[in-house]
């Protein structure tokens, strides 16, 4: 194999196409956000099953969490996109597949967060609300969930950051995110260092921005 004497750094590849990179980063952010929203909904539902006290409901919920946290995201994506598609005949778009995979993997974490949050609310709150005549559903809506909310927000924020990082794997099923676009550029122009450094920098900026946001929220929500 013949190596070139020196690698010519050409950052104009990145600076001339900064819009393309931003567009790609935007895709990552969107996909992570939708996946996260679904993961929260699934996680809350699962946590309620888990805390129901009925083994028929709580056991499947427990197993679900173990499985979702134990299977790599990469495996889940291919399982959804190729595996499930193959046996059911439902052809997911690659965009749908990554969102589903993120929602599944994220819900493993959000379930545990909601469970801990709900568990941290004193039993007396439930008893007091029930004894003044609130129904179970209204007690959850007006008393338990608002209090649990401030406990769960910081760890949920961290889960979002984790999903944002994980979302970059979507390029393997050709969702045109920033990594996919960088790869395309690399194939045509052969500038791997510049394009992947740009992607890395964008990811660091996004992750640090949201981490800082979570940190500030955490301080705001702390109960004095």
């Amino acid at each position, binding site marked *: 194999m013949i190596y070139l004497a020196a*690698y010519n750094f050409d950052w104009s590849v990145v600076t001339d196409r900064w819009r393309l990179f931003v567009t790609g980063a935007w895709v990552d952010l969107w996909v992570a956000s939708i996946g996260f929203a679904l993961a929260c909904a699934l996680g809350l539902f699962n946590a309620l099953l888990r805390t129901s006290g009925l083994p028929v409901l709580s056991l499947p919920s427990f197993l679900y969490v*173990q499985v979702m946290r134990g299977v*790599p995201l*990469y495996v889940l994506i291919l399982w959804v996109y190729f595996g499930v598609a193959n046996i059911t005949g439902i052809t997911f778009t690659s965009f749908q597949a990554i969102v589903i995979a993120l929602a599944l993997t994220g819900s493993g974490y959000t379930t545990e967060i909601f469970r801990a949050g709900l568990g941290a609310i004193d039993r007396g709150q439930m008893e007091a609300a029930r004894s003044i005549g609130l129904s179970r559903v209204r007690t959850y809506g007006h008393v338990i969930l608002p209090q649990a909310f401030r406990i769960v927000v910081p760890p949920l924020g961290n889960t979002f950051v984790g999903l944002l990082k994980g979302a970059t794997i979507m390029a393997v099923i050709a969702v045109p995110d920033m990594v996919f676009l960088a790869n395309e550029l*690399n194939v045509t122009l052969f500038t791997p260092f510049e394009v992947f450094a740009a992607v*890395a920098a964008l990811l*660091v900026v996004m992750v640090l921005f949201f981490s800082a946001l979570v940190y500030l929220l955490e301080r705001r929500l702390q109960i004095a």
Partner: protein
Amino acid sequence: MTRIYLSYSYDWSVIPNSIAFFERGLGVTVRIAVLSVIFSLVLGLLVALVRMAPGPIGLIGFLYVQVFRALSLYVYILFIYFGVAAAFHIDFDPITAGVVSLTLLNSAYMAEIYRAAIQAIDAGQREAARSLGLGSIMTFATVTFPQAWRIAIPSLVNQFTDIIKDSSIVAVIGTPDLMYQTIERVSFYQRPFEFYTTVAGIYLVMVLIVAQLASRLERRLQRHLA
């Protein structure tokens, strides 16, 4: 056009026929994960010590943790295997690129685990050791670290489960690990559901074994403290 099949005929016989490939892949996966966890444990401790140093040195440690934690393994692997390799003429083999990536990412996580554990040790321990005449290095090695290590171990072992899961991504650069072998078998047999379900199960079992180990260690270490 969307069609929904009402009956898919499963063929699980492809799995036992591929045992040899799973074994080969599993060997590579375990090797990558174990090497990465060992390197991360050492590098993470160094970073934690740098991070806790006063002044500009501590700032370097802080930046290392913030930046190296913020990247995903996929981006690491592409950047190192293609970017760094081309720019600096380093001919990484895929396994090395995978181990380097996993080590950089996880050393940043582990540094924070170590730091939290070291800071949890009462300052009186260090002061007592120093007043007995131990040097600062001896104090750290014989008094602070052995106690901090106990606190850190369960979290460090849990980090190992993330390494195992993340290691699947090395397949994208053709490392013949468990995931790569599975993808190869899928393209051979055209049975994605059977294969990906099986490989999900294999990763799950590995993760559960390590997690079990972590909780056992935790209980045992707490028994000593009681």
